[in-house]
């Protein structure tokens, strides 16, 4: 089976100053991008990921670095599976964290539960934005946050 399309960002940034480098890493983490090699980053291609990489490429150029954008297919299905499961494992860990925190929040007082609910809903939304290969942990995290919401609703009733 031929793999899907990926958008790749190949870049090089000067060592100093470190601010653009840190800003880039933060952004890549928010986007859930996979690092293939030092200076080579990938995401499944769609109009959003491609656009976000284009903005990043511009910022690398403005910081005095080099950057090019490529659209590519993995050479083998196995290669794509390995990359996808690595990305999946990263978001799965984030979802497990949400499950844990939602569980812990349920035993707290109502006000605390309400605040935790707002925070975990936002966190869940952020994780889903960077989740390209949803793992089973997604459903568990959604269920855990829903259970917390119900416990807040019951307390309010």
């Amino acid at each position, binding site marked *: 089976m031929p793999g899907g399309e990926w958008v790749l960002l190949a870049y090089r940034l000067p060592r100093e100053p470190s601010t653009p480098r840190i*800003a880039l890493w933060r952004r890549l983490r928010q986007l859930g991008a996979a690092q293939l090699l030092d200076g080579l980053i990938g995401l499944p291609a769609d109009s959003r990921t491609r656009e976000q990489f284009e*903005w990043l490429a511009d*910022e690398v150029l403005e910081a005095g670095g080099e950057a090019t954008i490529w659209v590519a297919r993995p050479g083998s299905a196995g290669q794509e599976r390995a990359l996808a499961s690595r990305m999946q494992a990263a978001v799965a860990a984030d979802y497990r964290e949400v499950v844990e925190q939602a569980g812990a929040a349920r035993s707290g007082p109502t006000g605390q539960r309400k605040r935790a609910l707002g925070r975990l809903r936002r966190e869940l939304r952020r994780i889903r934005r960077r989740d390209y290969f949803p793992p089973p942990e997604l459903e568990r995290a959604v269920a855990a946050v829903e259970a917390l919401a119900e416990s807040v609703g019951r307390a309010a009733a």
Partner: protein
Amino acid sequence: MRWATRSGPHVDRTACAWLIRRFIDPESEFLFVDDPDEVPADATAFDMRGVELSHHGGECSFEAFLHRYELDDPVMWAIARIVHEADLDDGRYDAPEAPGFDVLLRGLSMVRGDDEVLELSAPLYDGLYEYLKRATLLGREPA
């Protein structure tokens, strides 16, 4: 004046087009291109790679317009925070309206052509401006 941007406008490009028409150039004409090389010489490009009125330093194009044209209206900056989060979703600002705006504009661009998306979205930004202006004056959410 002629203004050019990428086709398939979502929140940042529609907000920029609204800003251009309301605050910079009431006679503006918009062109949509698929590649930066297609921008005609007499058109000002925005929200495209390699141009001034685009993303810089982690800011979106709408913010670039506010800087460039020195629009220091606090209501416009309140809109900018929403557009920024809807477009980049990087958590720089607290803008709970952003995900809703993002979905509305993405959905609109699925069922309408580029010109029509600009036309239909302009009253939304007019309304957002009015709402945020009242909120700023009142210091709380208007009824």
